[in-house]
């Protein structure tokens, strides 16, 4: 393709090709400081291409393609190229990853131990991880957590955090402007702005962490806390994984290992500050 970029995020390498220069230039800016794909060989190819030939010029719209694709994916406006690239990379991970158990979850690390948060979109897992990542924790990932199939460790996947609507203002107060991408208005997901994680998260992207606590947060409810048993955590995490079933026995071993070795809690919270307090308290009492 005319324009391309090689990008390494955690243990995964991407090759992103585009029919237009804009999306690639925006990616280069946002992902400044990230390495190229290891060995120059990408695990996945993402294509941003016109869905009809004339769509390169006339009312350009981006179809998301690549090694793995879904015919139902909606095309995006050319101005939303960063979001298209993000979705293209997500799609490859969700449909193609086999080396790790993929959890649709966010994770942060402190002292080598990791906190995993998962929940439906809107539950706040991404915003919480981004905030913790600015407040002394290392961000492992805001969207995907990669569980090692042999050792059970968590591999970072610190791509740029995708902030939506109110979360943008929240994080603008925490992180310096040079780490933000452009504001994308009126995308299918509302207002979006990407945030590059702190340099430490990128430098240590090859360094896994040991899981210690699993949380199922829910935003917009009165403060509440309920321990979640291993069987329930197992079933909920199978539903948060795009590749659990296709990994077969290796996936079963990794996921049962994760839920039997770690405590899990469902937490409800009315606002983000309350959630951060709750998380810090749970974390402090972990070994008590």
């Amino acid at each position, binding site marked *: 393709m005319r324009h391309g970029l090689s990008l390494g995020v955690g243990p995964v390498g991407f090759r992103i090709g585009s029919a237009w220069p804009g999306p690639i230039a925006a990616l280069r800016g946002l992902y400044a400081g990230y390495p190229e794909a290891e060995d120059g060989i990408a695990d996945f190819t993402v294509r941003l291409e016109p869905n009809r030939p004339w769509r390169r010029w006339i009312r350009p719209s981006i179809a*998301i393609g690549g090694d793995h694709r*879904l*015919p*139902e*994916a*909606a095309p*995006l406006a050319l101005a939303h190229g960063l979001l298209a690239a993000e*979705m293209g990379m*997500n*799609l490859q*991970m*969700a*449909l193609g990853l086999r080396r790790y158990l993929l959890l*649709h979850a966010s994770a942060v690390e402190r002292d080598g131990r990791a906190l995993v948060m998962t*929940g*439906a*979109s*809107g*539950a706040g897992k991404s915003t919480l991880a981004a905030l913790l990542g600015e407040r002394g924790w290392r961000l492992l990932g805001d*969207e995907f957590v990669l569980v090692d199939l042999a*050792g*059970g*460790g968590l591999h970072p996947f610190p791509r740029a955090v995708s902030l939506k609507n109110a979360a943008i203002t929240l994080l603008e107060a925490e992180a310096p402007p040079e780490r933000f991408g452009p504001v994308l208005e009126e995308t*299918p*997901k509302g207002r979006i702005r990407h945030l590059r994680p702190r340099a430490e998260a990128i430098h240590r992207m090859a360094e896994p962490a040991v899981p210690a606590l699993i949380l199922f947060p829910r935003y917009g409810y009165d403060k509440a806390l309920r321990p979640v048993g291993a069987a329930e955590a197992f*079933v909920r995490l*199978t*539903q*948060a*994984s*795009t590749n*659990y*079933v*296709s990994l077969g026995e290796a996936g*079963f*071993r*990794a996921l*049962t*290992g*994760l839920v*039997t*070795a770690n405590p899990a809690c469902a937490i409800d919270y009315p606002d983000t500050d309350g959630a951060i307090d709750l998380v810090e308290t749970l974390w402090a009492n972990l070994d008590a």
Partner: protein
Amino acid sequence: MNGPDQDRPEEEEGPAPTRRHLLMLGAVSASAVVTIRPALANTLGSVLTCEIPVPDRSLSANYIASDGSLVPADTPGAFPPAPMPFKGEDVKAALRYGRTLPGTDYAQSRAYTNYIRRLQRGMSGFTCYASLQMPQR
């Protein structure tokens, strides 16, 4: 990180338990087997946006009746196929809050949403529809 419990196939757990215990059988109607199914639809909605053609392109010779069923073209009271697929977000707004789909009036939108509700696995748009059904989406 494989725990001691799960590294062993069943047979290594020895012969059948010697200690007798009360076995709760439950009711005839109570289910005792739940199979884990692939969860792509749950996460799909948050990793990309999707769209639903009305009807499936291979069925586009048909009209859509108000109950969402497919009927021959030009059937009185039925609606022609939508010219463009609908975005997942618009379908969600229509299903959940009763908004009309873009470019349609009330009756037409109702016919289309009824069609979408009847989507089955294997038809285009089904995965998208399934992802919209998940809570909190």
